[in-house]
């Protein structure tokens, strides 16, 4: 089934490309049209994805807390999240009187748009990538750091003290953890010698970087997971929302669909960082290959590439979700200490180590 989908996607995308090229003579206009169609498809894919992530989060939480989780609406509670979305859609989108109305309404859009933009260079399956730019990694890290603007905007324009405190925390947090993420991304770029997503994945054909890159790759994988958990404001680094301290942090004043936008962005971000971790460290859609054990490699090749990609991504998502339901929240100074005193020096040293390994060709 998934294999068919895989091939189907590639064939369909290719035929679409041909058709548009034959219809419109101007190559730029053709590409724009193609991008628009691809973007709409991506949006259509995001909605069920976020529904699934919301459902998964509740079920993981329930599993860790000895509860059943949602089990009333639809089979096994699968439609609960749909019901919640309908509720949020029907609620009034309240704008407080004293808020800066323009910025207040713009902020959730910025947060959602930036998180959606990051999806562009991610390869979902073999030959299924929207935009294989040659600066893929750089693009992801630069666009994902823009979301802080939306959060600061939301906190400032709400004219609420809790929101402001949450936004300031979030600003400090995202700006600092950006460094660790960047450095751990660079360590893989050093190994693969390219910023292009397809090259990075291709370089892992005979083994994933987390295996081939020895200890430095494992260290940078752990740093990447920790730092990106902080980057996307999830517990134990959810200081920007800190329910017990700031009621709801930067989105205290938001309700209805505007609030749902933040939620949507949170889940897309969760998916994006997990997909990045899967692409850079776990080989993206590349199947698991062990050296020259031909029969094993052959069997692994039989599993469709999209299944490999989503399997790895959801494995990382599952880990990040478990963090949320296990750890207490850090305090704001401890959060910054963790970054500047531990993660950053370790990743800098790690990069030196990684460069050394890359120069000596010690990796497999």
């Amino acid at each position, binding site marked *: 089934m998934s294999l068919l989908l895989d091939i189907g996607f590639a064939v369909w995308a290719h035929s679409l490309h041909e058709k548009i090229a034959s219809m419109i003579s101007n190559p730029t206009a053709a590409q724009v049209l193609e991008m628009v169609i691809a973007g709409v498809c991506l949006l259509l894919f995001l909605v069920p994805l976020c529904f699934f992530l919301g459902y998964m989060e509740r079920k993981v*939480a329930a599993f*860790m*807390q*000895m*509860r059943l989780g949602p089990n009333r609406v639809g089979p096994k509670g699968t439609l609960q999240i749909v019901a919640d979305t309908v509720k949020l859609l029907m609620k009034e989108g309240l704008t407080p*009187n*004293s808020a800066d109305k323009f910025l207040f309404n713009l902020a959730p859009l910025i947060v959602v748009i930036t998180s959606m933009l990051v999806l562009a260079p991610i390869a979902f399956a073999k030959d299924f990538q929207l935009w294989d730019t040659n600066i893929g990694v750089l693009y992801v890290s630069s666009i994902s750091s823009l979301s802080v603007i939306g959060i600061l905007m939301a906190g400032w324009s709400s*004219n*609420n*003290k*809790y929101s*402001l*405190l949450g936004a300031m*925390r979030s600003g400090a947090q995202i700006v600092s953890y950006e460094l660790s993420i960047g450095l751990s991304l660079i360590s893989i770029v050093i190994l693969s010698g390219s910023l292009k997503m397809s090259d990075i994945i291709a370089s892992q054909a005979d083994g994933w970087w987390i295996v081939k890159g020895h200890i430095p790759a494992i260290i940078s994988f752990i740093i990447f997971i920790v730092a990106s958990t902080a980057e996307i404001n999830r*517990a*134990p680094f*959810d*200081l920007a929302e*800190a*329910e*017990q*301290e*700031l*009621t709801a942090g930067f989105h205290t004043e938001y309700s209805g669909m505007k609030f749902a936008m933040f939620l949507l962005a949170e889940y897309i971000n969760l998916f994006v960082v997990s997909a990045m971790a899967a692409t850079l460290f776990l080989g993206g859609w590349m199947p698991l290959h062990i050296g020259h054990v031909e029969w094993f490699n052959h069997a692994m090749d039989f599993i469709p590439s999209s299944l490999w990609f989503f399997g790895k991504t959801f494995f990382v998502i599952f880990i990040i979700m478990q963090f949320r*339901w*296990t*750890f*207490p*929240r*850090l*305090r*704001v*100074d*401890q959060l910054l200490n963790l970054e500047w005193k531990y993660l950053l020096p370790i990743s800098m040293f790690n990069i030196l180590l990684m460069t050394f390994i890359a120069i000596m060709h010690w990796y497999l």
Partner: protein
Amino acid sequence: MSLLGAPEVNKEGEFIVNIGPQHPSTHGVLHLKVWLDGEIIQKMEPHLGYIHRSIEKMSESLSYRNFIFATSRMDYLSAHINNQACALAVEKGLQIEAPPRAQAIRILLGELTRLSSHQLWWGCMGLDLGAVSPFFYAFRERELIMDIMEETCGARLTQNFMVPGGTMYDIHPNFQKRVKESLVKIKESFKEYDELLTGNVIFEGRTKGVGYLSAEDAISFGCTGPTARGSGVSSDIRKWFPYDGFEKIEFDEILDNGGDCYARYKVRMLEMKQSVRIIEQLIDNIPEGDYQAKTKNVIKLPKGEFYQRVETARGELGVYIVSDGAASPYRIKYRSPNFSNLSALEKMCTGAKIGDLVAIMATVDLVIPDVDR
């Protein structure tokens, strides 16, 4: 927060945040006015009275049998022990003592109450620090105790089981069996509690060295219970002024000289084990006999003043009755543990961060209806 786009900062350039009366981590309608410098707390002022029900004044028009039950609504997490304090105060006035069986039942139910209260506190402690899961684990074992209470007392939270002269009814026939079954599970759960929270690096970072309260300050603010014992002040009423036969029972008063949130946390965790120890001593040794001493239908205390103190889950509860010889008290005054513990909050919070404020409030374990009464 003033209305209609007023500036965030007042005339003096101070940044004031009102935490509460509706706030997720004040556990009730506590209103804290906090002066902030960035994240750091400069000054803090608790505003009380949002849930004042004038229980003391109300008691003046209730009979000596009835006024006891209003106290279940003060510190609702140790309702039993509040009732016990009032019953003991009336007994002091009548110069009678509850029969041995009643005393044993009172201690058993009291310690079960303390256990369930501390379990709830442990869950909320995790919740306040941002870990949601402990709450569910804590409620799993708390439910066992609540079921025992329901079976014997007919109520889960406000049991109203203590009457002057003993207890209202005898224990349920299943009581001993169920308590023993539950204790096995509860003792196992302590290990899980430790695994989930106690050794966690983030948890230790959030609590160690946070909210320091020196022994001198604890005494001068009148702190009692685990809040004072976490600062090394010996204040267990069960040891100092034993009541209902606590002098015959072996248990340790838990003291910790740390004075910080982690010390208070450890004191409460160990107190749960001591409560189990007390219950285990008594559960097979409940004396036979009456569960209630004979009292007149209408209780009238002789003219005078009577004071009784007990150790609730949160500290020392004092009941002060002034009687003019009538069928209802002339004046009742409660010395509630939470009110005094709350007064030390500012001392602990000044200079701390907002995140610490939540941690400190969690370890002081405030129950707001007991502050306001």
